């Protein structure tokens, strides 16, 4: 190889597996570094999918899908607990048990 690129300036896909821990530790974890990372990520997405001549609904939909997914992750615990209650009371949510008993 004619020139050796220092570890710090390599992109993630160019880093070899053995160098990965030291590469991660060398990243900039200051607040301005993290803010910069978010900004770069935002502009990467924006310029690829939205800021194009013939952008489609997909650019916006992927953002909304990610929003839905993140909210699902946030409320996973409550949902799984309410599902447990539902299966415990025979396939009906526990607050509707009385209603279903009256209907049958």
């Amino acid at each position: 190889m004619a020139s050796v690129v220092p570890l710090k300036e390599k992109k993630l896909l160019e880093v070899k597996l053995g160098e990965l821990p030291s590469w991660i530790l060398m990243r900039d974890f200051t607040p301005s570094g993290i803010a910069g990372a978010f900004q770069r990520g935002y502009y990467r997405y924006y310029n690829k999918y939205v800021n194009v001549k013939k952008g489609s609904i997909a650019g916006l939909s992927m953002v909304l899908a990610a929003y839905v997914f993140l909210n699902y992750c946030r409320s996973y615990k409550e949902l799984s607990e309410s599902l447990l209650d539902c299966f415990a009371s025979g396939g009906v949510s526990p607050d509707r048990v009385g209603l279903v008993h009256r209907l049958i």
Partner: protein
Amino acid sequence: MNENLFTSFITPMMLGLPLVTLIILFPSLLFPSSNRLINNRLISLQQWALQLMSKQMMSIHNTKGQTWTLMLMSLILFIGSTNLLGLLPHSFTPTTQLSMNLGMAIPLWAGAVITGFRNKTKASLAHFLPQGTPTPLIPMLVIIETISLFIQPMALAVRLTANITAGHLLIHLIGGATLALTSISPTTALITFIILILLTILEFAVAMIQAYVFTLLVSLYLHDNT
């Protein structure tokens, strides 16, 4: 019945950190700023909608009232986008919280009223007594008009909260009923499902209408006072 239904209205926190701040800031991601004369489709659509709304809403005001254009346009965009995002599954709608709607309504109403009292004191005070009231009724009417003035911000906030919360609750209830009915009587479940579809369409409309109404009323209070 109660606990299960209202869990979606609890302010989201994660490990003690207020996640709700991020959720309130999220709609700003969907409105990028423009650098150019001709923009991409998203920005062009938003600019068209913004022009339509500002022409429709701010044309009744005089020069002094039109200085509020930026405030009112960002208000209608914020409420509209927040309400529409709240219709996505599992999402949290900040406008269901009375605290937030009061925080929007009271400063805007107070700003309009105080502007009126400072700049056109006589005209603002004259609003407390409608023209042509019989003399014996004057004291009572002044009291009633004062009460109706002070109830304006409360009504603004409670209207928005109640409409959005009621819509979300109805969707939860009818959706739950559809699920419960599928095992008992599939025909009734189908009817309930159709009702759910119609309700969702209504909720989309309500989301946008409520934003419009909120902003329109603030602009009316402004018009009275400039």
